[in-house]
């Protein structure tokens, strides 16, 4: 099935800003720095932006906040808040708005100073009253992911060593990425022996807490070809969600990535075998296992063995989170935009030492809440059109 949106829009600019620690900078300054850099990457300026797709953990009104800060009055704005999945599904929303003529230059932007501001995951949703869960002091979000991991171990025999391999592979990629926050060698024994946070997940099964911003600029394909860099085309994009509260997750070991992946691959006319680089939101090591299953890279229940054989490492069969991911590169609260940025960089051949040779199809996958919202994007070079 070929849908109209395949290849109709493209990413023309992508950039990060202030990854790691940015003491003295506000989330708006970090987001704006990323926006400025992504627009410069495209050969555009902030004055060209007439569609704004904002996401933030620091503002109740991210579109209003960022537009005001950037000094723009966009024709089309939205601020979908589905957690760390937001910036990936916003590519679909941007493509729809671009195709419909609601805007001509779409900016997706995110920024956070959570590490410098508080040292922990900043979550405005903490203010939301969840009376059926609150008395039990769920440590959010890790306790939810831990219970999915525990259930995966119980149902499928997944081992802590297999989970640890996800973190080890991420660190090997991060070692080749100058932007990565943690680049020191990491072994499985280090992961298993580090402080337990929520069984069976140790602190090294968990993503980092950093500052940082990211931005992506999209236009229709015809305009994209006249801009500064080779366009990276949006071939497919879809989302889905199953719950808000973790206790309402229908099946703890299966996510809406089944739905988002199937729909995104159908839109793109591709299968997992066609993907050269995979960038999946690795909030915790269990994410890689479950989401690779749900996206169709391996059957349900086999994710542990699938990731456990070194396949995700540099030189392995499935180049995965080639920037080091949330586990070793950066995690300023919501990783979605960074999965896209790395996919774009790989497809442009900009990744230096960690470049996957000849990559033409990339997958970016966002995950929000506690396995609540999933969004999948398939990106490709001109050769894939």
């Amino acid at each position, binding site marked *: 099935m070929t849908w109209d949106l395949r290849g109709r829009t493209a990413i023309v600019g992508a950039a990060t800003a202030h990854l790691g620690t940015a003491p003295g900078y506000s989330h708006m300054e970090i987001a704006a720095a990323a926006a400025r850099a992504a627009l410069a990457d495209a050969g555009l300026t902030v004055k060209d932006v007439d569609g704004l797709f904002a996401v933030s953990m620091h503002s109740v009104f991210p579109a209003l906040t960022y537009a005001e800060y950037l000094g723009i009055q966009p024709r089309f704005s939205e601020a979908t808040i589905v957690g760390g999945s937001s910036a990936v599904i916003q590519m679909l929303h941007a493509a729809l708005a671009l195709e419909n003529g609601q805007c001509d230059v779409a900016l997706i932007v995110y920024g956070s100073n959570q590490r410098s501001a508080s040292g922990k995951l900043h979550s405005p949703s903490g203010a939301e009253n969840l009376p059926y869960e609150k008395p039990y002091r769920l440590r959010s979000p890790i*306790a939810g992911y831990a219970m999915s991991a*525990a259930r995966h171990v119980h149902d499928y025999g997944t081992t802590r060593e297999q989970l640890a391999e996800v973190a080890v592979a991420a660190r090997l990629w991060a070692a080749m990425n100058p932007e990565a926050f943690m680049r020191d060698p990491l072994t499985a024994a280090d992961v298993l022996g580090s402080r337990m946070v929520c*069984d069976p997940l140790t602190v090294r099964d968990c993503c980092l807490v950093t500052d940082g911003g990211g931005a992506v600029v999209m236009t229709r394909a015809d305009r994209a070809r006249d801009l500064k860099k080779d366009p990276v085309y949006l071939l497919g994009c879809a989302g889905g969600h199953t719950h808000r509260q973790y206790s309402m997750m229908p099946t703890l070991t299966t996510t809406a990535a089944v739905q988002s992946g199937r729909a995104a691959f159908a839109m793109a006319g591709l299968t997992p075998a066609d993907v050269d680089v995979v960038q999946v939101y690795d909030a915790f090591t269990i994410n890689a296992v479950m989401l690779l299953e749900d996206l169709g890279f391996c059957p349900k229940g086999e994710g542990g063995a699938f990731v456990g054989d070194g396949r995700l490492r540099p030189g392995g069969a499935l180049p995965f989170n080639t920037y080091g991911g949330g586990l070793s590169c950066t995690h300023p609260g919501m990783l979605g935009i960074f999965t896209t940025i790395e996919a774009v960089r790989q497809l442009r051949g900009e990744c230096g030492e960690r470049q996957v040779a000849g990559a033409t199809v990339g997958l970016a996958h966002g995950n929000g809440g506690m396995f609540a919202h999933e969004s999948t994007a398939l990106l490709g070079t001109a050769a894939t059109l």
Partner: protein
Amino acid sequence: MSEQGPDATYFAYLAAKDWRIPKCRGCGAHVFQPRIMCPSCGGEAFDWVAPSGRGVVHSTTVVRRRPADGGDYNVALIDLAEGVRMMSRIEGVEPADVAIGMPVTARLADQDGDTIVVFDPAEGGR
């Protein structure tokens, strides 16, 4: 307790030390968390019934915490015999000894002045 929404009804029962959940008059499904519409059939009429208190641990974790901060504690999801799942914790056993599949029994407990539902390992279970 009819002149209020199902959330307030649930917590009013609990405050009276009476744990009840809605059961749909249309399709007979127990509904948790309480809603104004049955997610199975769309029914809008419910009987508030006392659950049997029997359940099974669906998943569990130990939230690790420094002893000075109160020490480790359990968080679990419980599948009730009535066919619904809820978050709670298992008491009366070390947090790390709570296991998936463990039969448990509900008990009302006081926490900071609120009545909450917690679970203990079932008598004679496993």
